[in-house]
């Protein structure tokens, strides 16, 4: 469902050019559970943002469900982000003044659902991640693990084809991190496609396939043991 080839990303900083990605090729199929690993600065987030249609490559080909992403307009990209991709960030990225429920409803608002459907689906998604009793809480009234669960519920609520998580446990203690990874395991078992970025071997072990990046290049790509 995802196919990239020769994907390059350059950042210009002053007179310097930073090569974040240097011709990456990758194929990801439906219902895969993939971990992207690599040291800090190796280009993991850059690749993830590209896959999530938040960013566009400087060069290279990107096909999402058979459609060329490079040729898409901003609004078409927004639509893909809304319907096809569920993004989970290291820093949760919840709207601080909205309740858990409102945060989860947000993608459905942009998708044009009626208020009733929205509510029902958001409640279901929150119950799925075990937060049925925290729906009216605002992010600052929730623990880190609970915030990340809200973010996962938000990523799931519009039933995307793929879930992208960039260091989802990076801001959590290890016990909570394990809980979150168990949640991803469940989602995978329910038939979701998941890509997780991490630099922790413990976390990567949950995945079925591990891609290792180094200096903007794929170093290895093989099944997890």
């Amino acid at each position, binding site marked *: 469902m995802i196919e990239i080839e020769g994907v390059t990303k350059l950042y210009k900083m002053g007179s310097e050019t930073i090569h974040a990605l240097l011709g990456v090729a990758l194929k990801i199929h439906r219902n895969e559970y993939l971990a992207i690993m690599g040291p800090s600065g190796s280009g993991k987030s850059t690749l993830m*943002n590209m896959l*999530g249609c*938040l*960013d566009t490559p400087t060069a290279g080909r990107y096909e999402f469900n058979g459609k060329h992403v490079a040729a898409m307009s*901003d*609004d078409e990209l*927004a*639509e893909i*982000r*809304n*319907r096809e991709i569920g*993004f989970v*960030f290291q820093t949760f*990225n*919840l*709207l601080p*003044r909205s309740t858990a429920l409102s945060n989860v409803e*947000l*993608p459905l*608002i*942009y*998708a*044009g659902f009626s208020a009733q459907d929205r509510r029902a689906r958001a409640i279901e998604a929150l119950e799925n991640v075990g937060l049925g009793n925290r729906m009216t809480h605002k992010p600052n009234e929730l623990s880190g693990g609970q915030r990340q669960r809200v973010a996962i519920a*938000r990523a799931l609520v*519009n039933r995307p084809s793929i879930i992208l998580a960039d260091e989802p446990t990076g801001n959590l203690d290890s016990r909570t991190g394990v809980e979150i990874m168990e949640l991803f395991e469940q989602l995978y078992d329910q038939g979701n496609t998941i890509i997780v970025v991490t630099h922790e071997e413990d976390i990567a072990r949950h995945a079925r396939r591990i891609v290792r990046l180094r200096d903007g290049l794929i170093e290895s790509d093989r099944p997890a043991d």
Partner: protein
Amino acid sequence: MKIQEIFGMSLSSLAVNKLRSILTMSGITIGVFSVIGVMTTVSALRGSIESGLNILGSNAFQFQKFPSGFSSGGENRRKYQLRRNITLEQGQRYQRLMEGIAEVVSLELYDFTPAQAVYQNRKTTPDQTFGGGNQHYLAANQYAIETGRNFTEGDVELARPLCVIGQGVAKKLFPAETPIGKTIKVRGRAYMVIGLLAERGTSFGQSQDDIIIVPVSRFQMEFGNERQSLNIATQALSQEVYNETIDKAITAMRIARGLKPEDENDFELFSNESLIASFAKVADAVAAGSFVISGIALLAAGVGIMNIMLVSVTERTKEIGIRKSIGARKISILTQFLIEAVAISLAGGLVGILLGVAAGNGLAVWMKASIIFPWLWAAIGLLVCSGIGVGFGFYPAWKAASLDPIEALRYE
């Protein structure tokens, strides 16, 4: 996505920064308030004046040396000052010439310094209207006798020391007795009260009941000086002969003034129409002035809105990034911020309209005009406010909508 959802988002983020929203609003409020206030007063006064506030009385017109206060001043002032005064003799000649054409010819003299009336140990305030009139003064000025009598032709011819007084004077000097037959003193001269006028109330902020009128001939005799010029009010017999009467009156005036055929008229004619017209002229000037002032205020307020919206966009860069990352389109973000700007502007405008209508009507009521609600101006006001919101909100909203999602997310 639906517009009402975006509305909710916009309003809730305005609520977060209540004080800031209100301060930004207030600029718009001030701009709208001033123009709506002025337009309300002007429309109310215009309405009242046009619908029957007969300044001169019906079918009446007036001659005097100077044009009405509305349009005097400036370059022409000298020209009017150089004119000969209208004398009592000329007025009496005019009156004789108008016999059979108009019955009510009121000859009036004032010296424009307010006076104080004294009876025994009681005094009025020193701001009473004091002047001379003939037997037609009351009719021409819409006064009625409550008790006692009006001047007779004989009183005026013989310059008898008599007076008629308004209710305001009577209340001060004769709180518990009839004024008729009593002798009061004004500026050291004694006058016997022969008539008490019926109550008139206030007009244009001035009491009509604080008045003392003596026979015009007596007034001339005792206080006549070279600065005084006679006012002559004439009432036509009917609406039908009104224009004809004015033509004849001008001829009579020219004869009375001894003008040669080639001379220009050296007196001013007022009619209700000409007063309304000159009021309209002043009203238009005031309105134009208030438009300019509000225009500047609204422009400044618009820039204020733009400034606050730019600050808001910067502060909420992260929020915009989050919204974009979960699929908000450009147009959704644009609309959200545009609605915020319009909401601030419209709310400010609405408050301005309410305050303006209240203040404008307050002023109108004080000037004895009736209350109005200026629907058209209110509608225009709201339209202009929406325009300001959209106009000055567009650039910040567009800036928000065009943020790169990744850059915006990374913003702390």
